[in-house]
């Protein structure tokens, strides 16, 4: 193997790779998935009660409800627009505060409240919004409650869904950049005949495979770090995070090289990736559903890279806690490297007979 030739091929791959659709997908997909899962699905799994308010008299109630945790407040200009929004379930409830409302409550005039509930709003949201509103009105009135409520928190806070989704997003960053980019680059070269031309030069298949593998490692590491930063999962232990990410990128890229060496054309590559998708994805599902028996996840190869990322990057652990997992991941990488080496001979024969 020649490091100089490998570097030249790698340089060429970086230069030409940016024009490849797969390369572009590898860059865009983690960002898109972060946006979709964190923004869209985060609110789908953990919906917050939504209150629409029309305030014509600069009411204190609006400020108080906006300061309340966990209630999404939307201010409307006129009651008709609010009514339509409640009817369409754009908000769970609507509250109209006319001019002079605060003064009337404070004076004990008991004004009639305009309060609407959407027919499609959930019972729990109706209760939360109704009792919170009444409590705020009592506060506005200045009434002192006859009870002192003491709140005591018990148990340990579970991880929110936005955090449990991080392994899923990192998984896609690793698979797209680490597995798909080097494998498709290799297959593309086979299809276009450039690999055959390359092998006429002093470069060997090993140089090509190492260059493609390095391409995958660099890209997968970069995209995983970007994904972790976007998901606010890169903490003060970032040097340790970089180590686990690098190991993960090495393993996925080695897998990419094996797949690329195996596939004779793009369709076969697509078929292999699609066919093995469930097998690769399986360990990630265990982070989304922590009640499942976790030992099953260990049966899948990508568990050994997803788990260190989870424990070091997301939970803030240290390398010493995941040393055995990293050891297994490096072992799998070496085994895949040996497999890729033996497949390279088959690939060379394949190219020669094309």
């Amino acid at each position: 193997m020649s490091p100089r030739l490998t570097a030249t091929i790698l340089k060429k791959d970086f230069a030409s790779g940016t024009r490849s659709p797969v390369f572009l997908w590898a860059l865009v997909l983690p960002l898109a998935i972060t946006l979709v899962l964190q923004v869209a699905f985060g609110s789908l799994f953990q919906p917050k009660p939504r209150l629409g308010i029309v305030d014509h008299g600069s009411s204190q109630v609006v400020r108080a409800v906006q300061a309340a945790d966990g209630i999404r407040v939307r201010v409307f200009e006129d009651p008709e627009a609010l009514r339509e929004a409640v009817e369409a379930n754009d908000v769970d409830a609507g509250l109209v505060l006319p001019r002079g409302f605060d003064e009337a409550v404070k004076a004990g005039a008991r004004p009639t409240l305009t309060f609407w509930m959407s027919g499609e709003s959930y019972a729990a949201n109706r209760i939360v919004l109704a009792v919170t509103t009444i409590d705020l009105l009592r506060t506005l009135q200045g009434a002192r409650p006859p009870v002192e409520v003491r709140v005591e928190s018990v148990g340990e806070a579970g991880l929110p869904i936005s955090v449990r989704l991080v392994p899923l997003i990192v998984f896609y960053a690793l698979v797209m950049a680490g597995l798909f980019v080097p494998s498709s680059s290799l297959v593309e070269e086979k299809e276009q005949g450039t690999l055959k031309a390359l092998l006429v030069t002093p470069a060997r298949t090993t140089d090509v495979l190492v260059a493609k593998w390095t391409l995958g490692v660099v890209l997968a590491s970069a995209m995983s770090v970007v994904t972790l930063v976007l998901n606010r999962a890169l903490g003060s232990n970032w040097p340790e995070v970089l180590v686990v990410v690098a190991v993960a990128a090495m393993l996925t890229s080695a897998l990419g090289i094996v797949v690329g060496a195996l596939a004779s054309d793009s369709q076969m590559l697509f078929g292999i990736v699609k066919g093995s998708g469930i097998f690769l994805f399986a360990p990630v599902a265990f982070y989304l559903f922590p009640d499942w028996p976790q030992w099953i996840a260990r049966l899948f190869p990508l568990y050994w890279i997803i788990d260190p990322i989870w424990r070091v990057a997301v939970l803030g652990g240290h390398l010493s806690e995941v040393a055995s997992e990293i050891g297994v991941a490096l072992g799998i990488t070496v085994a895949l490297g040996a497999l890729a080496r033996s497949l390279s001979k088959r690939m060379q024969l394949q190219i020669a007979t094309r």
Partner: protein
Amino acid sequence: MRRTVSRVAIVFALLKKELVAYARDTVYLALTLVVLIAAPLLFRAMPDRVDEELVLAICPPVERLLEGSTEALRALGASEADIARIRQADLTNQKGLLLVEFDDAAKMRAAIEGSLEVWRASDGTLVFVDTTAGEKRPRGAERVDVQVGVAFPERFLADLVAGARGIEVTVYTHASAPPELRQAVTSFVREAAFEIAGDELPVRFPDEKDVVLGTDRLGDQVSLREKMRPMLLFVVLMMETFSMASLVSTEVLERTVTAVLVTPAKVSDFIAAKTIFGTLVSFTQALIVLALIGGLTASSWSVVLAVLAIGAVMFTGIALIVGAAGKDFIGQLFYAMLFTVPLLIPAFAVLFPGSVAPWVRVLPTFPIIDVLVKATVYGGGWREAAGSLVYALAWLAVLFGAGVVALRRKVASL
């Protein structure tokens, strides 16, 4: 000697060729099978009911709170009307509220912590299971997630009616309980105390019938499974874009289309065959999935079939555009994703509560998903779907027209 061949026979022959090519394409054939198996499985895996209840634990039980206080209340001069008012505020019968009653605060705290499990049997009775003591979970019961509980003093009611102030009530919340729930239960306790103490509300509330706007779905919410039905049908239609585009691009890249055009077949026959084949394949798959997941009613079946047919032609049109544009397999895959990902947005939008954003309504696939939702989720018919169907047909004309033009130009350039 010249033999006249009818256009129908040519298109039919091309259709047979398409079928053979499709059957040989193992990747897409496997993908088709995966979709046909995965879609119904995913549908069944979705929850079929909406958990909209607010679960509130209390101790001591309501009955004990009342029993322990009735005599004291009388002794303190409370009238029978006062006692009746307190009894009528029966929390156990509040709609949307599941009250879990505990004998003591320690047990309630254990349930919130999770060491004591609460299960609801099919007849609605609540069963407490202490897993640390090796107790078994009841069969056929569902777990009740108790996140918040209120520990009232035994003489809570009596003291309140007697005019006592500063009575201490402890609200236990699990650390992961959402803040709005914590706040709501605190507010709830304060308001209950105000009411029992006889303090009237600072405002007048409108009649209940004037409060709820739109169809009241309390206890009858649309489940995630029902919401997934239109989405799955839509995805099945869309997935065919990939395989259809592949069939088109293969002919373009390998220039077999030029071989076809040497025969009496014209470009229009080629496009007609592709359109019929693509539409039939995606429409048939959607029908299979529909049969497996259900959703047809006497009033909606014709609308559903009509919109599935429109969707199948629309996605075939998109496949013609993608197939004509792709320079290789990966490029074609990229273009297919580029088209289908934005077109998937309306299908996701229906999973969220509320009306769909105006920019989503502009997308060509919105009317398709809108009709599917109206027909399969709410049982709507032609009257409810008419506007969206006209809009879908307009987009169909644009996309299919663009597909035909793109493919014609591509074939002409070969």
